[in-house]
């Protein structure tokens, strides 16, 4: 089985203290739509962080499904705008997001 570079969890960012400077400087944290968070796999500090925020661990497939659902909602909202809507001329259609393993 191939090694995974990332692990995923779902947690709602409550604000101050959710990600600290210490967290951010010790390992990479990336947020995605649907309150999905990506951190390095097999990383002690990342595991501590997930536990600390009460993150619900997800497989990459499960995380991808959550992100894709949110992207599709945003794309549908964009597509529903009239073609001449001022907003539609300024915003690009939300891009698909593919989560790496």
């Amino acid at each position, binding site marked *: 089985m191939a090694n995974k570079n990332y692990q995923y969890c779902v947690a709602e*960012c*409550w*604000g*101050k*203290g*959710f*990600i*600290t*400077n*210490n*967290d*951010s*400087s*010790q390992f*990479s*944290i*990336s*947020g*995605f*739509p649907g309150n999905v968070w990506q951190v390095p796999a*097999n*990383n*002690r*500090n990342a595991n501590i962080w997930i536990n600390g925020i009460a993150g619900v661990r997800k497989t990459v497939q499960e995380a991808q499904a959550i992100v894709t659902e*949110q*992207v599709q*909602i*945003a794309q549908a909202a964009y597509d529903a705008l009239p073609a001449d809507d*001022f907003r539609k*001329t*300024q915003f*690009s259609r*939300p*891009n698909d997001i593919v989560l790496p393993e």
Partner: protein
Amino acid sequence: MSTYYQIFGGKVNVVSADPSNPIEGQIWYNTTTELLKYRAIAPAAWASGGNMGTARNELGGAGTQTAGLGFGGYAAPSSKNNTEEYDGSAWTAGGNLAIARYGLVGAGTQTAGLGFGGYTTGSGNRNSTEEYDGSAWTAGGNMGTARVYLAGCGTQTSALGFGGTASFPTPVNPTEEYDGSTWTAGGNLNTARYGLGGAGTQTVGLAFGGTTTTFVSNTEEYDGSAWTAGGNMNTARRQFGEAGTQTLALAFGGTTGANTAATEEYNGTSWTTSTSMTTARKYLGGCGTQTAGLGFAGITTANSVATEEYTGAITPVTRTVTAS
């Protein structure tokens, strides 16, 4: 395999308590905690701040990381007039803008803020200016050119506004200078663009990034009368957050066609890529300095309330060596 002794010619200090004032590069083993530790310069980092009360995008920002101001913006179906004040931990409601608008510029401080330009749903581009005193907004002088997606910098009584679009999607290049009551023409940007960033002061200003017909990376520096070329950004983008001065600027987030989390620092000559934001987003608000920046709200796939605080790579910290 080389040992620490072979490389450095000495052994790791074994101590029962962490040294009170370690220097950069110092390493020691603490027998009490049974941890191997070292002193290092912390890399730049983004940390989460308090969530805003109103999710929105394309808002104005002013102030500092611990005394920030976010105002205006857009949340479907219309422009917003809400103001929120940040104290370094939490956002609280301030006085509302008289004119709801998005794509405006913020300048100044939390208690002496300035908002100008922008676009109001159903009314179009704005040339009006509003001044904030820490609790309420009052009308200031009108700009010569009504526009949206412009950039600016400076203070409530000495501000600079430049670029933007007066008729979307055609960019404009006029610069205007504000003295606390009246806007007058300054030197034009060399590259007309909208969705750009601004930093600095009225006489030592900085313009960077944005869109002409494509995303651009070029930087221009203002001396109070004319713009000259500076170093190019590494990531061409628009609708990003910004902070700092002409020689210590910060750019973060925005769109390159897709949302980006990329962060860059400017030193007066060139841009250097720094630690990325945790969440890629565009149309966010920003304020602060290069070493203590603040990014808030914006769009991921939906409007966000999230705040992120940037700390530049300046603070030495003690770290523990772990096997991971």
